């Protein structure tokens, strides 16, 4: 897996910038004075970058954009990591059980997944976000997880189904190995590469979806600084054109992050599929 990444220049560059950005955001975060970052100051409203000592300018409430960008990035990354991790975990478990046992278990689980995916994901999240009064970033993540593990489960199920047919599984069964051990000690390791590549690609997608949902007003709550909320400044045509410092850094940060993750993800994807491997 690592060899495929190492030989792909774009993937290496992507990985490098990904680590740099994530490290900057998380290492800088503890040094931000949150109270100062949230303080409204009418004298410093809408200052362009560089003016009055504000490197990235200020927002309509007179707050320094630089710490806000870091805070927002941290919140958005947290959500993206949490959601991707949670959804992958559930997806892998459900997929493994469904695919390994097959038969009725599989049938019931697949019908449930079919049922949930009948309604577009975005609609489901919007409805459930509207349903919960005073929702927090945590409840938002839970809703997000609840409706985004299904594609992973489908993928892993298909792979587990293939693995279950193989000789090593039947050999292990005849030796009397308990199913649980076969699933986790023998089948799961064979799926690690496909799980990692799927994990990276969904991480990138989830970042974009979080931004989109927050932009629509059904993502992170308005008070929580997030990249989507920063991009939301562009809804006002005047600000979009004349106060680009309000939303452009956040928009660029999302794109750069998603690009980096996708570059790595594609290399991992090639590594997971013997047919596409380049080395």
């Amino acid at each position, binding site marked *: 897996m690592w060899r495929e990444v190492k030989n792909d220049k774009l993937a290496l560059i992507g990985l490098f910038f990904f680590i740099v950005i994530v490290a900057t955001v998380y290492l800088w975060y503890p040094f931000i004075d949150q109270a100062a970052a949230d303080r409204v100051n009418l004298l410093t409203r809408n200052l362009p970058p560089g003016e009055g000592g504000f490197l990235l300018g200020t927002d309509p409430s007179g707050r320094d954009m630089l710490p806000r960008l870091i805070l927002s990035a941290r919140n958005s990354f947290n959500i993206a990591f949490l959601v991707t991790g949670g959804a992958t975990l559930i997806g892998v478990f459900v997929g493994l059980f469904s695919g390994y046992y097959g038969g009725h278990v599989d049938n019931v689980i697949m019908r449930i997944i079919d049922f949930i995916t009948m*309604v577009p994901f975005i609609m489901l999240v*919007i409805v459930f976000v509207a349903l919960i009064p005073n929702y927090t970033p945590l409840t938002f993540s839970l809703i997000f997880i609840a409706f985004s593990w299904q594609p992973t489960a489908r993928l892993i199920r298909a792979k587990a189904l293939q693995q279950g047919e193989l000789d090593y599984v039947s050999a292990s069964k005849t030796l009397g190995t308990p199913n649980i051990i076969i699933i986790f000690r023998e089948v799961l390791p064979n799926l690690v590469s496909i799980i990692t590549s799927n994990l990276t690609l969904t991480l990138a997608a989830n970042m974009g979806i979080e931004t989109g949902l927050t*932009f629509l007003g059904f993502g992170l709550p308005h008070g929580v600084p997030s990249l989507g909320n920063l991009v939301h400044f*562009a809804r006002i*045509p005047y600000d979009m054109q004349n106060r680009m410092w309000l939303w452009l850094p956040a928009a660029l940060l999302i794109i750069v992050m*998603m*690009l980096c993750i*996708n570059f790595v993800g594609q290399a991992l994807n090639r590594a997971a599929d013997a047919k596409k491997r380049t080395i």
Partner: protein
Amino acid sequence: MWKTIARRFLILIPQLFVLSLIVFIIAQIMPGDALRGRLGPDTTFEQYMALREAAGLNDPWYVQYARWMGDILLRGDFGTSLGISPGRPVTEVIGERMPNTVRLSLMTSLFLYMIAVPLGILAARKKGRILDKTIMVYTFVALSLPSVVFGLFNILNFALNRQWFPSRGSIDVLAFGAGGMVAFMSRIEHLLLPALTGAMLGTVTVIYFLRSEIIDFEASDFVTTAKSKGVPNNKIYTRHILRNALLPIAGHFGIVIAGVFVGSFFIETVFSFSGMGELFITSIMRRDFPVANTLIMFYAIMGVVSVLIADIAITIIDPRIRIK
């Protein structure tokens, strides 16, 4: 095959019933109701309760559900809107928006194939060369652009900075009044930028798929045979490879257009384009459940049917594939 398709249709019916029930219960749990938006400073509690009574909101939920379902099944009546345009039938409110979304989706799909098919073919023919790599980088970028951000960039660049396209809406007010050809042109003009935005983001899967299909076919036996017979290279591509590679792409049209339909949630909001996606978001914000519930059911049916159509189309195109 037709038996399996019939069976899948039959499964669909109970699924839709359960879905409608869940959707209805969720709407009941949701805090607030559409009528609160219509209250003025002088409205008394009694007047508010009278409004609720008239809309039937004071009945127990199962009575309301039975009435809603009964009206739909017996009279094709999906209820009346409560918040967005009070008193008007839901079908009318949605019907107003549907042509816009359908137009947008068709235009988007048209652009999508116009961009993706040539790029996919080029990438495969120049495999490993600079052109292929450029196209692959393009797909990476398109994959990494959230539709909201890409939409905003396009508005800023092409609608605000250079005024090539209108920046928002689905038709010009004056053109709407003028009607006829003027209105039609104005609609098209308003469609171009959102459609291009959606199309460029949607091209990725089609390009990947087409590229790998063509590369697979290049190594297949019938191409080797054709080559050894001395068929010119161009003819191999047009007559042998493309015919085979484009068929599954055509078969997946239903799924692509369903994806475009759903993708229009973000695009419509960014471009303030008054379509169904935007209607759904406002209906949830205004707690206009008759409209929201009907839209959810509509999207669910559309999704399932488009997958079914794609499956049927693929089996017709390629008889080797059997669906079960």
